[in-house]
């Protein structure tokens, strides 16, 4: 939780020009973008691992 709050501090926020929702929504936009991209890379990693297993099984079969 503390690290999350530190992350939010990383994003510029000025109460005199920003609405309160900006404090949450702006970090969410950045974090979700990274999270989805990294999740997709993880999915490719899993696909690659399955492929390596299939390849070794096929080589063993031969």
């Amino acid at each position: 939780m503390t690290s999350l709050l530190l992350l939010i501090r990383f994003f510029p926020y000025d109460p005199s020009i920003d609405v309160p929702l900006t404090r949450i929504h702006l970090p969410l936009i950045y974090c979700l973008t990274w999270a989805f991209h990294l999740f997709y890379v993880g999915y490719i990693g899993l696909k690659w691992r399955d492929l390596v297993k299939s390849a070794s099984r096929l080589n063993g079969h031969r």
Partner: protein
Amino acid sequence: MGIGWRWRGIALVAVMALLSYGLVQALGVSPPDAQQGNMIRAFYYHFPDWIGASVFLPLNLIASVTYLAVRSKRRSLAMKADSLALASAEMGVVFCGLGLLTGSLWGRVEWGIWWTWDARLTTTLVLWLIYVSYLMVRRFSMGSSTAVLCAVLAIFGFCDIPIVYMSTRWWRTQHPAPVFGGGEGAGLAANMQGAVWWNVLAWVAWGALVVSFRYAVELRRQQLESSEGVSRIHDRTYQGAADD
């Protein structure tokens, strides 16, 4: 597994450096907007999503058309085209989905609503759903005609892209007019341009790198599946000859 790890490793370092620089530009260098305040920084991650979708979904179309054209004559090229079609469609769906998500988060702050059924948003949602259905057909359909069906679906899916692009020009929409090429009054201040274009470059480069990984994995999978099929035919023929 010779899928060029060395050059992809170097490219990954370069792309991460670009993304870091883009992040610094977006959060540190660019000033707040006179109207939107710091929420303008959402645009620096929202706009590259649409550029990404505009690069990878047409790439899916090109790969799909290539697959349809060469599938019976050049098996190897067809396999490559089909693998590229899958990789680019997945990346396009990620970018398009993120564009909808980040747009919704921005809209809640600036418009006070999460979503509205205006022309731009609706046609974009339809576009995302078409390509999600494309990926679902690829994932769950069995049989030799799956790749052909998907290639045809990709051509129909692409027809929505020009409609999405033109929607803010053809209809009055809640969505803002295009920032670039939107006529008089459109455009960004010079000190915001860097944040936009560095992030566009960084995310498109990231997308290209990830697509190259996914393409290599999918191509190898198809090659393996093909050689497994040949191996089974060989085994059966050998067993049949032994029985005789």
